[in-house]
C-alpha cells in the first residue's frame, strides 16, 4: 500500500472549493485504510497553534483529535530529526524550517513521499518527493471523478 506523510496544510482545506474538497477525500481514503497517511507531532502542533491564534481553540482541539485518530500513525520527533533538518537546510536554504523538519521525520521513518497541496517547498528537497493532489487521486483511482467535478464547478 502507498505510504505518504501529510503536511500540515491538510486540516485547513475543507472550505468548500472543489480541489480542497477532494483533498478531504484523500483523508477519507486514509480513514478507510486504502492509503497509509502519517503525520508527525509537530504537524499536529501547527494545527493547535494556528487555531489558538485565530481564537478558535475549541475547533482546533477537535481537528487535532480527529487527525490523531485518522492518521495511520503519529511519528514522534527526535533530536536526530532536528539534526537532519539542519543538514537539509544547508542544501535547501530557501525551504522553510517547518517543511524541513517534516521532511526529516519522513526520511528518518523511511517515508519517501509527502502529500502536500502547499508547494513548492518540498519540491526543492531531493531526498523526498512531493505528491500533488491530482497524482495521488490518480493512484487511488479517483482522478476521473475529480476532473468531472472540477469541470462542473467551472461551468457554474
Amino acid at each position, binding site marked *: 500500500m502507498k505510504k505518504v506523510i501529510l503536511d500540515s496544510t491538510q486540516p485547513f482545506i475543507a472550505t468548500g472549493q472543489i480541489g480542497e474538497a477532494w483533498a478531504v477525500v484523500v483523508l477519507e481514503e486514509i480513514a478507510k485504510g486504502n492509503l497509509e497517511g502519517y503525520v508527525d507531532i*509537530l504537524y499536529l*502542533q501547527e494545527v493547535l*497553534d494556528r487555531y489558538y491564534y485565530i481564537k478558535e481553540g475549541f475547533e482546533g482541539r477537535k481537528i487535532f483529535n480527529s487527525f490523531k485518530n485518522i492518521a495511520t500513525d503519529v511519528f514522534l*520527533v527526535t533530536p536526530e530529526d*532536528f539534526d537532519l533538518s*539542519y543538514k537539509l537546510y544547508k542544501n535547501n536554504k530557501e525551504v522553510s*524550517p*517547518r517543511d524541513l523538519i517534516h521532511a526529516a521525520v519522513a526520511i528518518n521513518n523511511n517515508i519517501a513521499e509527502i502529500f502536500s497541496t502547499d508547494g513548492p517547498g518540498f519540491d526543492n528537497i531531493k531526498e523526498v518527493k512531493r505528491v500533488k493532489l491530482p497524482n495521488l487521486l490518480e493512484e487511488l483511482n479517483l482522478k476521473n471523478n475529480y476532473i468531472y467535478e472540477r469541470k462542473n464547478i467551472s461551468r457554474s
Partner: protein
Amino acid sequence: MKEKIFLDPNLFEFLSKKGRGFQSVLDIIKDKKNFITDVKGLQEIVYRYTLIGETEKGYENAMKVRNEIEIASVTKKDLDTQGSLLQRYPNAKPRELLHVAVMINNGVKKIVCSPESNYKEIEDITVENIIAESFDI
C-alpha cells in the same frame, strides 16, 4: 544528582529585548549543567530567527543549545498528556502545554521561561527565576 530544569527558549527572546545576547544566556545554562528542553524548543528558536530573516543564525543558535543541554524527543505520550492539559487549561497556549507535557513525562518540575509566558497558571510545575536573577531582571 541536580534536579533538572526545563528551559523554554522564549527566555532567549525576552532577554534579547533586555539587551542580553544569546551567548550570555547560554553561558549561564552551560555552567549550571542541569537544563533540559525539547525538540520543539529547538524548532522554536529557528522559527523566531526566521521571522526576522535570519534562519541560518537560528539554526546555529539552536545547535548551540542542542550541543550544551539535554534535548527530549516529543512523543505520542506527550501528545496525550498535552490533550489532558488542554482539557484542564483550555485557554492556555498549546505550545506551552506541550512543553509542560514533556516536563511531566520526563519527571521535570521546574521551568525557566520568559516572564511574559503563562506557566505560573499550571499547577503541575513551578517557575524558576534563576536566569532572570542572574541578569538582575
